[in-house]
């Protein structure tokens, strides 16, 4: 509900997120043995759907799966380069059809019921993802993968078509236990009690209890191999759902909650002012945009779209609606990405130029009602968004800004599901809407801007530029970044000028952390990235 829509499709990146908690300096002084114990409470305003990889699509479920309950084959280091995790090492070999990727798994990781984690689990997971009957929501992660072959208990080979960032999938897919789920028919996996009643993992924490709508409780897994860091420091990890932000803030201040994920921007100042809590921020992968429906007369003209962007005070939006948590955007490539065009300035806030552009395009207020017209068309339309407080605030500001240049906006909040249905319908039932994308490390924008996708479900802007098509096609298969970079830059320059979207801002994530939790590291790789290293000094334990 909250995240709206997000794109996840691969590539590798250069630029790392900036935020890492500034932790207590003397933490190093505490001997390792004293760090064990205590309960850490993580809370957010949304529910975790399931521990079942095959069913869940929400961000927080994936974080709990990948960092708490399960283990991924690889992880990223701070430079976003793959490093071993469950897979001790891997190598690649070129085959006739493409590429063979062989993973050598650790032999000391076992499922929480004692059964060792083996290559069969990897193959099982791979096969189920590829099976359409499973209806795995992120199946496109492995679109260019072909098959998996187990060569021995801890070795598995994967055959794939060569493409940039092919390793990225294994950062987000955790193998699932074949000995438990192997006998379940693919269509039934989604409903298996594994998801929320009896998940069995192989990660640093074991499942204890789930109370729907309330909490997930995990406890330290004492058998977690030393090679992966051993038993986590905290005894228990609790995830709580507290829907109302005011209540959640109250619990944080009262000390009942240690980590508050995705703080409402309005609350940042209060958390910073409160002794004992601090805010950890980092630039994440999301950006917000307004999509103009290119099939409508008004939005067909790039000049008009540019005028609209010039008329919107995006700096103010970041200041007011996001409390400064963001950065004015100039295109679809967020700053974390290696292809980000650092020298490209976003279009300024310039209502006068906006008026001039609109006038040049023939949009003039003829009847003196404050709204421009051209022929029989009026510069008046609806912008939809989903029921998210920040998005509604932005819409309110956008409406006020555009009114100043003679463009009438009717904001409309529409519940996510039916909004999704409207914007994806072949008839494109909207004038414009405000949502956000999450750009993955492996960026591929063809589905949203390519001419070939004009009738597709996601080409909402109905934008078509042959040069953009060419660039996107080429970078998608180009493994050499130095070769791809100029193309990426050109792409960003074109979109800045033509504005198929009005790119509003790149998101900065804010999480609140109580200071008693030590060694919290949160960055673009994940909020729970360092959860197994979190520790609480004995005096601070509840």
């Amino acid at each position, binding site marked *: 509900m909250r995240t709206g829509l997000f794109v996840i499709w691969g590539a590798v990146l250069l630029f790392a997120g900036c935020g890492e908690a500034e932790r207590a300096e003397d933490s190093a002084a505490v001997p390792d043995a004293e760090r064990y114990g205590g309960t850490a409470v993580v809370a957010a305003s949304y529910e975790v759907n399931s521990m079942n990889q095959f069913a869940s699509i929400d961000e927080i479920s994936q974080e709990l799966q990948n960092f708490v309950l399960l283990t991924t084959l690889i992880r990223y280091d701070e430079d976003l380069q793959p490093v071993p995790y469950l897979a001790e090492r891997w190598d690649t070999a070129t085959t006739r059809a493409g590429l063979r990727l062989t993973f050598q798994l650790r032999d000391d990781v076992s499922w929480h019921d004692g059964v060792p984690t083996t290559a069969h689990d990897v193959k099982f997971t791979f096969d189920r993802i590829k099976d359409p009957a499973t209806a795995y929501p992120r199946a496109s992660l492995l679109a260019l993968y072909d098959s998996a072959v187990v060569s021995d208990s801890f070795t598995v080979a994967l055959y794939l078509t060569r493409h940039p960032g092919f390793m990225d999938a294994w950062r987000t897919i955790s193998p699932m236990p074949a000995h438990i789920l192997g006998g379940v028919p693919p269509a039934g996996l989604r409903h298996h*009690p594994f998801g929320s009643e009896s998940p069995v993992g192989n990660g640093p924490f074991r499942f204890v209890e789930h109370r729907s*709508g309330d909490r997930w409780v995990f406890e330290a897994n004492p058998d977690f191999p030393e090679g992966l860091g051993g038993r986590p420091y905290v005894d228990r990890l609790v995830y709580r759902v507290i829907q109302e932000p005011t209540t959640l803030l109250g619990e944080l201040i009262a000390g009942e909650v240690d980590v508050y994920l995705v703080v409402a921007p309005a609350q940042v100042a209060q958390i910073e002012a409160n002794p004992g809590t601090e805010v950890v921020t980092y630039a994440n992968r999301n950006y917000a945009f307004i999509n103009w429906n290119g099939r409508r007369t008004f939005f067909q003209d790039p000049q008009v779209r540019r005028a609209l962007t010039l008329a919107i005070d995006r700096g103010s939006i970041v200041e007011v609606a996001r409390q400064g948590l963001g950065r004015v955007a100039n295109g679809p490539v967020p700053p974390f990405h290696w292809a980000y065009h650092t020298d490209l300035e976003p279009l300024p806030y310039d209502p006068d130029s906006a008026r001039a552009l609109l006038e040049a395009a023939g949009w003039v207020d003829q009847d003196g009602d404050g709204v421009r017209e051209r022929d029989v068309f009026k510069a008046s339309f609806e912008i939809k968004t989903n029921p998210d407080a920040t998005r509604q605030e932005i819409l309110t500001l956008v409406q006020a800004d555009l009114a100043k240049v003679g463009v009438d906006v009717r904001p409309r909040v529409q*519940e*996510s599901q039916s909004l999704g249905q409207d914007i994806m319908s072949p008839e494109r039932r909207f004038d414009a809407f405000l949502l956000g994308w999450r750009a993955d490390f492996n960026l591929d924008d063809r589905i949203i801007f390519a001419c070939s996708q004009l009738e597709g479900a996601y080409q909402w802007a109905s934008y078509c530029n042959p040069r953009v098509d060419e660039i996107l096609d080429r970078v998608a298969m180009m493994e050499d970044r130095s070769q791809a970079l100029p193309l990426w830059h050109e792409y960003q320059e074109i979109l800045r000028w033509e504005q198929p979207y009005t790119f509003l801002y790149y998101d900065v994530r804010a999480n609140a952390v109580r200071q008693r939790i030590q060694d919290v590291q949160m960055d673009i790789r994940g909020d729970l990235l360092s959860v197994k290293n979190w520790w609480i000094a004995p005096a601070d334990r509840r």
Partner: protein
Amino acid sequence: MTAYIFRRLLQAIPLVFGILTLVFVILQVAPGDPMAIYMHPSVAPEVLEQMRENYGLDQPVHIQYVRWLKSFLSGDLGTSLTQNRPIAAILAERIPNTLLLSGTSLLLIFAIGIAIGIVQAVRQHSKLDHALTLGALFIYSMPSFWLGLMLILILAYRVHWVEWWPEALKFPPSGMDSVNYDLLSTWGKFTDRLDHLVLPSIALGVSSAASVARYTRSSMLEVIRQDYIRTARAKGLPERTVILKHALKNALLPIITLLGLYLPFLFSGAVLVEVVFAWPGMGRAIYDAIQQRDYPTVMATTFVFAVMVVIANLIADILYAVVDPRIRYERERR
């Protein structure tokens, strides 16, 4: 009595059936697609079709209706689209929580409401009576979520302008128990649960308590005028006995019928209060389900809500019969 209960149960059947049909119709008429949550660029259209088929959403409406009724009659409430688990399992977790919250509220409503109503009736037209009437009216006129937020700010969060609030009167603002609940002793568990009940049950119940007080006051005033109260006084009974023994039981009769009225109201209020206080009950289950177009969950939860209301009305009627010997008599004679 048994025959009476049985008859009432029979009468409830068309009611429940009507509610189910109503919900089904509303959900069918409403725009929006339950599969929309799975729509994003990495989900292939074939995958969506596959899921639609898995859930039986590709069938014509009347088939879906009959199928749903059938499975419902065989005790299968279906599977949640979003949580991917049997709805019966979800409700089994949530119903006791909502019952605990609304039960506590109900207790509070009647205990406080009746006590205040009695005080008001006994001291009719006094300053205290007027003050309580006015206070009740104001509380009754407050939006419950607003009251909830205020309670959190003052009682739990203690914002800077209420720092004077005593630490001992601080109550946890969310959840049903502490995170270390399962590690507590039995007594610790009990007090912990009680602590967590304070704020939500107040927010949920206080406006109904105000209206119970109003009803009790007028009912009590009516009863106090009755001849048998004069008889009781003429016997030389102390005023306490007259009020608490002779007047109260009679005054309570109309109040008991309110029970049946308040339960749907409490369940409604539970939606807002459970959201504000992060109480994992049915109200939030249905709110989330509606938001996510989880049709089977909406229908099952609604059904359970309706059944609970019907049961509540039944209990209210039986209770009425227990308290009022006249009714008991008539029923036995029949």
